[in-house]
């Protein structure tokens, strides 16, 4: 053969991108993610604006205090379901189908394989998150205009747009890492959804401020980074929310890395 270049990390990125785009389930999940994201970002502000007259003063104050969160968080909470399912499937399916054998024969160093898979997925989710946030804000500001205003050009809004992308990307890599750890598609999806939905619901019953500190330290509570930072019910700031989610993702990624490099495939 004429070409004798050794494979490098960019080659792995291209290979993983090819894997990612060549499965129909990818496009399904990304489509569902977009519909849920834009859909709930429009639905919740529309419903709340519609029920303004019957709304109690506390909810009205929250509506006005964190309009940004009201317009972006509902979509993010639903869109992350699709990001979690797709992320968990991406790695767990390598094991459940036997693809992992072909993967590690082609790329026997496992550290860059995990990095390339995570990088491709994170980049796609970040871009898609920004693409969902922008129309959501335009739509949302029109829907809430009778009762509140959104400063579309403000640094806070820009931060929230990038935050939407980061929230999906970090959540997706968290799910992908758990998929690499659990190695079984159904178990991986169940584990991720338990962490993202069951735990928050269970911990919400913890009493007092200690309870809300714990409940809001879960990865899914990182969506505080999509708000204005002025929601009285949030105990962490948007930046703290980002750091909490990033820490969870880093721990899961590190665990996946250890598992992948130490265990047989």
């Amino acid at each position: 053969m004429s070409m004798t270049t050794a494979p490098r990390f960019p080659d792995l990125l291209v290979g993983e991108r090819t894997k990612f785009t060549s499965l129909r389930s990818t496009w399904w999940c990304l489509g569902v993610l977009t519909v849920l994201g834009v859909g709930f970002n429009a639905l919740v502000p529309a419903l709340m604006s519609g029920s303004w007259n019957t709304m109690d003063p506390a909810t009205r104050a929250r509506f006005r205090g964190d309009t940004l969160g009201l317009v972006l968080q509902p979509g993010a909470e639903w869109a992350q379901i699709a990001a979690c399912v797709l992320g968990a499937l991406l790695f767990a399916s390598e094991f459940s189908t036997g693809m992992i054998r072909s993967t590690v024969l082609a790329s026997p160093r496992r550290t860059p394989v995990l990095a390339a898979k995570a990088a491709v997925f994170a980049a796609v989710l970040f871009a898609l998150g920004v693409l969902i946030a922008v129309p959501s804000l335009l739509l949302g500001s029109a829907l809430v205009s009778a009762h509140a205003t959104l400063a579309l050009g403000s640094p806070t809004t820009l931060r929230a747009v990038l935050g939407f992308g980061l929230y999906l990307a970090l959540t997706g890599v968290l799910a992908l890492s758990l998929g690499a750890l659990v190695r079984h598609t159904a178990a991986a999806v169940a584990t991720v959804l338990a962490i993202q939905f069951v735990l928050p619901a269970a911990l919400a019953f913890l009493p007092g401020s200690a309870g809300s500190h714990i409940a809001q330290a879960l990865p899914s509570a990182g969506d505080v980074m999509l708000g204005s930072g002025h929601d009285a019910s949030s105990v962490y700031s948007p930046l703290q929310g980002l750091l909490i989610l990033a820490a969870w993702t880093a721990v899961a990624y590190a665990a996946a890395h250890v598992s992948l490099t130490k265990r047989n495939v």
Partner: protein
Amino acid sequence: MDDVSFRVLPGRVTGFLGPNGAGKSTTLRLLLGLERPDRGDALVLGRPYAELDAPARSVGALLEARSFHPGRSARNHLRALARSSALPDHRVDDVLAQVGLTEAADRRAGALSLGMGQRLGIAAALLGDPRVLVLDEPVNGLDPEGILWVRTLAKRLAAEGHAVLISSHLMTEMALTADHLLVIGRGRLLADCSTAEFIERHTEPELYAATPAVARPALLEEAFLRLTTV
């Protein structure tokens, strides 16, 4: 397995034999970095597989049937592997043609028959035009046409200068395909010699003498059982 070392030379088909559970697949998985040895090193071409500069160009392997995602087309499966290995995309068309999968290349890999799935696995092994080709039980579950195809391909690749290692527990198939044999059992390497020599050495002398030369490959099973069952 303890302290097993062997050479697989270019230009011939080497058969890798041993009773079930003797560690044939484990040996290959150790060599190719899918498992880690308890102690010591598993080296291929003098280095751990993961430290080869271009693994796909050095060693191509088929370890188990169905090492692909059933939802991806055969072509995209090979494309992803080729790109990860820094191989040009035209290698995908080359190997698809080489294994006779060009027509089926855009079907979901999960819809391929067992034999076609095996061809896809061999196509993946051939992507980098590797110096060494390792096929673990490549004819398991194949129909006679598929078995003949694997045998012909292995011999042709060896004749083109590749080193071909085939593991199997099917003695007659090995007698027809392999020029050289490695036999493992009882945790060690029991034999490393040409197929003809192995048969001569391990068959009962009277039986060997009474068998016409053309029929001697059929004695491999007898020789193998005499060596491995004690």
